[in-house]
C-alpha cells in the first residue's frame, strides 16, 4: 500500500479521546433505499413498500437497510485511514431503526492506542446517529497505521495478526 498523504492521520500525533473525521449522509430518501436494494438484490419489501412496512410489519417508516449502514461505518473508517492505513476489524450491532428521511452521521472516537509489531493500532468507539442525536448502530473498530519511519502496513493484511486481539 502507498505511503501516507499529507492529511492522513499520524499515529504518534493521535490521542485517546480524539474524534475521527465523521461522515454525513442524507436525508436518506426512499430512492436511496431502492437504489441500495437493487444494487445488492435484496427485495425485502420493508425497505421500499411503505404500506407493507407500516401496516403489515407495523414499522414507523421504511427502515434504512442495516447492510447499507454497515458499509457507511466501514466507509467512515476507511476515509480516515486511507491511504496508508488498513481497517483491520469492525463490529457493530443494530439497536434501533433509522427510517427514510433521516440524515445520518457516522462517527468515531479513539479509545486505545498501541504500538505492536512495528505498527500503530488504533481502537475506536464508533456509531451512527440521526439528526435528533439518537444512536442506532454502536460498535468498535480497529485500524492499523504505519509508525513514522516505520514499515508499511502489509497488504494483504496477514490473518496471522488476527490472533493479536486488541
Amino acid at each position, binding site marked *: *500500500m*502507498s505511503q501516507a498523504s499529507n492529511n492522513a492521520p499520524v499515529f504518534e500525533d493521535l490521542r485517546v479521546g480524539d474524534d475521527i473525521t465523521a461522515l454525513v*449522509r442524507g436525508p436518506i430518501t426512499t430512492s*436511496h433505499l431502492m*437504489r*441500495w436494494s*437493487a*444494487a*445488492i*438484490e*435484496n*427485495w*425485502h*419489501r*420493508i425497505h421500499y*413498500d411503505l404500506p*407493507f412496512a407500516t401496516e*403489515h*410489519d407495523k414499522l414507523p417508516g421504511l427502515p434504512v437497510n*442495516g*447492510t*447499507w449502514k*454497515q*458499509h*457507511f461505518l*466501514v*466507509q467512515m473508517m*476507511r*476515509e480516515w485511514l*486511507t*491511504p496508508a492505513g*488498513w*481497517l*483491520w*476489524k*469492525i*463490529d*457493530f*450491532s*443494530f439497536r434501533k431503526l433509522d427510517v427514510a428521511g433521516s440524515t445520518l452521521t457516522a462517527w468515531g472516537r479513539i479509545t486505545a492506542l498501541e504500538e505492536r509489531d512495528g505498527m500503530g493500532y488504533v481502537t475506536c468507539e464508533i456509531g451512527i446517529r440521526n439528526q435528533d442525536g439518537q444512536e442506532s448502530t454502536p*460498535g468498535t473498530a480497529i485500524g492499523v497505521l504505519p509508525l513514522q519511519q516505520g514499515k508499511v502496513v502489509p*497488504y*494483504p*493484511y*496477514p*490473518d496471522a495478526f*488476527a490472533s493479536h486481539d486488541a
Partner: protein
Amino acid sequence: MSHITPEMQALIGIAGEVQTAPTPLGPDTLRRFTQAVMESDPVHWDPIEAERRGFGVPVATPLQPMHLFARPAGTPDTFERFQDKPDWDGMGGTVSKGLPSLNLPFKRLLNGGYACEFFQLAKLGDLVSRQSRYVELSERESSSGPMIVFKTETLYTNQHGEKLLRIVHTELAR
C-alpha cells in the same frame, strides 16, 4: 425448559458447503454498488488510482463480497411466490449461506450485528467463494420471552484461495 436441542448443538462447528458467486466481480456490478453506497474513493473505479495505490485494478469496498451471491441466471424467479402469497415479505431473493437449518422453534428473526476482519479487497475480475459454519448458540430470556442467539462465521476467499474477509453474524430468534 431449554429450546436448544442436541440436534441444534450438533451443528456447531460443522462447515457448510463452499459457495461460489455466479459470476466474477464485473465493472458494472462494482459501479452500481459503489454508487449505491455513496463511496467517494476513486480506487473503486479509476484504474490509474488503483494502480497508484498498489491494487493493480479497481477493487471492491471491503464488505461487497457479502453481496455477490445473487440468484444465478436461469434459476426460478423467487417473485413467483407472490402468486400464492401476495403478502410475502420478499425475503429470500439471495442465496442462503449453505448451512443446514437449525430448525429454530421461533419464527421472528432479528439481525443482531456483525463482527468483521479484513485481509484484502476483492479485485475486478475476482471470483469470490465463501464457506460458513455455526460458531455459537445460546439462549436467553428477553422482555418478550425466550430468545435463541446464534452466530455464523463466514470466510470469503478469491479464486486463488486467498482470504478476503471473515464475518461473524449474530442473529436472534424469538
